[in-house]
């Protein structure tokens, strides 16, 4: 009888130790970022549609991305004190910022719009940006009552400390759009998330609002 009880206890002990080692391993891997990031990124070099005709300059006012349910106001942003592109106030969860030193959406060149992925407590306007796929549409309504329609070329992720500047800012051969938010590992401090998620898109057409 005593012998049997120790048998159960021994089995339980074995199972506990083995599960514990497994769980600890998983936890360590996540904490140190050794597990491969399973989110599907990296659609570089996929579909690039022929660009639609460029529009005259006009400030963007509204952003719509039907595929991920985004409908948000756009306000101009400049540079922050640390030299990065400024962002909307962290409390304005559903607001996006257009970088006003760059072209307006629809002009030749890369128009840049940023939005928060989350606040300290809740998901924000670009929480699902990383799930956009090539071919999906992004609509920017401008002050001139024209809607510039962009098509996603690729969704990519870069280290915040080393952005590919020529790809982000350097292509003036066509009217294009860059949507930027945060992603990757949370490191906190002045960095926040370690990476930026960037959606590259090209103007395909425009229509009256």
């Amino acid at each position, binding site marked *: 009888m*005593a*012998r049997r009880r*120790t*048998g159960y*206890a*021994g089995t339980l*002990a*074995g199972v*506990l130790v083995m*599960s*514990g*080692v497994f769980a*600890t391993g*998983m*936890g*360590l891997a*996540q*904490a140190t970022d050794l597990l491969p990031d399973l989110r599907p990124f990296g659609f570089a070099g996929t579909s690039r549609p022929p660009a639609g005709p*460029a529009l005259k300059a006009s400030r963007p006012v509204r952003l719509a991305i039907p595929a991920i349910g985004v409908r948000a106001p756009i306000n101009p942003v400049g*540079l*922050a004190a640390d*030299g*990065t*592109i400024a*962002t909307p106030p962290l409390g304005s969860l559903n607001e996006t910022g257009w*970088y006003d*030193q760059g*072209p307006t959406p629809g*002009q*030749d*060149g890369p128009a840049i719009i*940023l*939005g*928060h*992925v*989350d606040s*300290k407590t*809740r*998901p924000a306007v*670009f929480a699902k940006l990383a799930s956009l796929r090539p071919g999906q549409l992004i609509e920017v309504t401008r002050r001139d009552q024209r809607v510039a329609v962009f098509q996603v070329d690729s969704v990519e992720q870069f280290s*915040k*400390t080393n*952005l590919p*500047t020529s790809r982000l*800012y350097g292509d*003036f*051969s*066509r009217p294009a759009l860059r949507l*930027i*938010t*945060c*992603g990757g*590992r949370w490191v*906190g401090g*002045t*960095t*926040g*998330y370690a*990476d*930026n998620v960037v959606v590259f898109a090209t103007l395909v057409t425009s229509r009256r609002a």
Partner: protein
Amino acid sequence: MRALIRTTIVSATVAGALLAGAVPAHAVDVFVEVSPQTVQAGFSVAIRASCGDTVNSANVKSDAFGEVMVIPQNGFLIASVGVPPDKRAGNFVVRLTCPSGRTATTTLVVLAMNQPTRGPQTGGGALANGGGDSATRTLLIGGLGMVGIGSLLGAFALHRRRTANRA
């Protein structure tokens, strides 16, 4: 015979359409255009122009890049010109002056945007690791806890077995 006439008419129509299509829409106009129409200071732009005839060079002038000759090529007057890197942002008139004295203008938008290599701060942390910060902690603490309890239990079981065998 009727079929022949119809064929002829159709052919003539098609030929006419093709001819109309082949002639550049601007061919008889005096015009100037730049590509891209918006450019970062330090980049270059292509100029395409026409003075109605395509034999003579012409002059294109702008505060954005100075003065440049546009030269006949493939039915247009063309040139490529760089905007100086220190050019201020603004809208610049680009003026074509033909040998005949006729002129045309367009606008070149020059940008002087800063291009930060450091990415913007676009998150507060609520979604960090998809809520995984707490999951990671649970895995680590739970896992170590299980190892600890399991070891104790194992030691206890071994001890019990040894005592039972001795008895």
